[in-house]
């Protein structure tokens, strides 16, 4: 052979050195040169995977929310503490009994096709969301009617209080649709679902499937002077290496949901051209959990679940699996809900000896190195669940539980867990959303054990006391009392372990230093991006 393997390796090892020493060549600065040539302010936002549609009234698909919220607005926006901010509504007021909300709507707002926006659109949209949004049936379960005394007032009347409702009016969660385009025909097959017409800062221009979605600045936006961007591209880049390259050569300006390998964050942000933040995810925090199938006779035993809890070191998951971008959490309600979060001690801290002792006592002795074998299904979404599962396999091997991992694609997993219930335990992550009644209750409430329906009570947990606490919290308008109900619920599930909450994930947004103005939004990149601006000259980027 003309070259030796060692020489080859030596040759390869020169690559990263080159990366450090050779400055970026100007030809690579796609985005910056674009601007220099055309004079347009272009913002390239990542969407991955490609959204199934561009209107989020009937879906909670993450990238549909990202795409929809730029065109279709909500009544309210939210800051980082989930305090409501004006959007299509300029003022709002809850009745003392919690049974009605009065929204004053913004004057002079026009749909992108020129029609005026009125309270009729609000009434129509809330009804549509209640019927078609995956969470709408729950969030708006108590919605009795929407009254429209005039074109700029909407009064939402409820049959029972819904204390979480005021946080549900974000653009991505409860978009306001144009009644005049949706009133006739089947809303699910309305062509505007893929070519939305809204009131937002950006207008739909085109969707090249598999490649990009193009939005253009809405010159008639009600917030004059905004947005500070002429063209917004939502780019579909499925491969992480290509995403990384796109950030580094300037052809991507921002991407959320940890768009690049977290191990590379420090390196790519070292020279200051790229930055990252974990802000902008207040509206939904995702925990990583271990869900047991309680129909499995072995896992139905409390002491087995206790032993598994003792065998897992959450700190390793935080540090190694999530590269530090996670918070250890014992409780299923994240700390960000300060008034609801239960901060009690972990009843089953990391203790291998204790785990082994529990399993011995349970009559499950080691035969050779193994006591018994279980199959673990990580949710096939991104790689963090599979990585967590690899750690759990490693951790449980130390207490004599032989864990087999199962790889499968998304639909197979969904069918296995929620329809066939052919699983032992699973590593999952389901957003806690804007309120525990909407995001957390669904995983523990016995009435939400619904075969065939994804992201429901997958453990088949059934505790009447937990049901009572959750149902009371759902209608309790007194915040303190509501907090006590949630804390009592958490204390029980932490002790009984239908599932083990491991960490709360921190999502990372990577962005080019030339863009700013989205971090203070509680919805981050899933907000309207009206306030985004692009600073700096094209050359400054080089």
């Amino acid at each position: 052979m003309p070259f030796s393997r060692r020489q080859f390796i030596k040759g390869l090892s020169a690559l990263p050195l080159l990366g450090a020493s050779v400055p970026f060549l100007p030809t690579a600065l796609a985005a910056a040169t674009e601007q220099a040539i055309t004079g347009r302010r272009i913002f390239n936002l990542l969407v991955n995977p490609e959204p199934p549609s561009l209107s989020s009234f009937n879906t909670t698909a993450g990238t549909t929310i990202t795409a929809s919220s730029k065109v279709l607005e909500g009544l309210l926006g939210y800051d980082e503490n989930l305090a409501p901010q004006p959007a299509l509504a300029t003022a709002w007021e809850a009745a003392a009994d919690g049974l009605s909300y009065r929204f004053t709507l913004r004057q002079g707002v026009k749909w992108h096709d020129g029609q005026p926006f009125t309270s009729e659109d609000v009434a129509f949209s809330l009804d549509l969301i209640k019927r078609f949004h995956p969470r709408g049936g729950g969030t708006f379960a108590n919605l009795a009617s929407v009254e429209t005394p005039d074109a700029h007032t909407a009064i939402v009347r409820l049959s029972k209080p819904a204390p979480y409702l005021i946080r549900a009016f974000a653009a991505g969660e409860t978009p306001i649709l144009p009644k005049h385009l949706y009133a006739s025909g089947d809303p699910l097959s309305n062509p505007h679902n893929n070519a939305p017409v809204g009131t937002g800062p950006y207008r739909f221009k085109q969707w090249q499937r598999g490649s990009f979605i193009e939005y253009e600045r809405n010159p008639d936006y009600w917030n004059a002077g905004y947005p500070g961007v002429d063209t917004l591209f939502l780019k579909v880049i499925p491969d992480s290496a290509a995403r990384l390259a796109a950030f580094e050569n300037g052809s991507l300006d921002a991407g959320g949901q940890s768009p690049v390998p977290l191990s590379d964050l420090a390196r790519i942000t070292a020279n200051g051209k790229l930055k990252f933040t974990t802000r902008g995810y207040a509206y939904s925090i995702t925990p990583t959990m271990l869900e047991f199938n309680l129909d499995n006779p072995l896992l139905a035993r409390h002491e087995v679940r206790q032993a598994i809890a003792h065998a897992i070191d959450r700190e390793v998951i935080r540090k190694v699996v999530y590269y530090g971008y996670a918070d250890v959490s014992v409780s299923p309600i994240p700390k960000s809900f300060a008034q609801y979060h239960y901060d009690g001690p972990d009843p089953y801290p990391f203790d291998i000896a204790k785990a082994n002792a529990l399993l011995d006592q349970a009559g499950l002795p080691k035969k050779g190195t193994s006591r018994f074998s279980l199959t673990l299904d990580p949710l096939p979404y991104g790689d963090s669940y599979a990585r967590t599962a690899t750690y759990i396999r490693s951790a449980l091997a130390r207490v004599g539980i032989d864990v087999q991992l199962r790889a499968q694609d998304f639909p197979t997993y969904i069918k296995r867990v929620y329809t066939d219930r052919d699983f032992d335990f699973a590593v999952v992550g389901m957003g806690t959303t804007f309120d525990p009644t909407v995001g957390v209750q669904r995983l523990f409430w016995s009435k939400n054990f619904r075969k065939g329906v994804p992201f429901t009570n997958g453990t088949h947990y059934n505790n009447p006391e937990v049901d009572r606490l959750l149902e009371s919290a759902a209608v309790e308008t007194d915040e303190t009392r509501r907090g006590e109900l949630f804390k009592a619920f958490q204390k029980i599930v932490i002790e009984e372990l239908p599932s083990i909450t491991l960490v709360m994930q921190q999502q990372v947004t990577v962005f080019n230093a030339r863009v700013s103005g989205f971090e203070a939004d509680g919805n981050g990149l899933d907000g309207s991006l009206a306030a985004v601006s692009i600073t700096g000259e094209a050359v400054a980027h080089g």
Partner: protein
Amino acid sequence: MSTIAFPVQRAGRSESLWGALRRNPAALTGAAILLLTLFMALTAGYFFPGDPLDMVAAPLLWPGSDPAYLLGTDSLGRDVAAGIAHGARASLLIALYGTLISVLIGVTVGALAGYHGGRLDDILTRLSEVFQTVPSFLLVIVIVAIGTPTVNIIALAIGVSSWPTIARLIRAEFRTLREADFVTAARSQGFSSRTVILEEILPNALAPLVVTASILVASAILIEAGLAFLGMSDPNTASWGGMIGSGREQIASAWYLTALPGIAIIAVVLAFNLLGDGLNDALNPRLRRYLP
């Protein structure tokens, strides 16, 4: 497909296979690499006891930075050297097993079609055309999606999608050989078709079969790697493809996670190809036949 009227000549095997191979340095290199890989696969459990997928050290240690983990660790702190050694087992197993399946199906179909001809030949040829027209890699993906990506399913998928190559080859051989004198003689003695196929014709078609099979093994390793790249690898078994699949996230910072198993794959695939070429030269010195 039309028939190309090439003059077909069969080489007389005047010297032993070993003798021919011995004078071919390329084939010897290939054989040496393969023996080394085989040794690595067999002794993996001795040099790297324990589960190669276990998280044993700090994550992302560079090769050479810790003498206990010579080739470094991956993003979960798994030993890369242990993965490469144990991965040799899975990669070889999947490739050999997949090739065996495709040889079994291909020989059966090809022999029946080539020997009997007529209607059966038409049907079987059509069948193998169906499999050849469907992009085989997509077929592999579909089959793996039906099952789950375990070593067995991946091997089966590779076998099911790659048999037409063998079938075409065997059919052509049988069509030529069925008119040969020794076959006519055997038939006239009243031997059953089965006996004639298995004992008379097949041994004579063995040479090109071995050559093609060795190339198929090489391509099976490549298919396994491609699947793993798309995230379809067995998570309970260390395999080179799987290591590339899990390491490619870190491609820009810890490229050794992709490069090292990649080099292992190239080395073994190269070895099979070298050996295949060597066998081809040795067995068919006149007729250099390539059916990749």
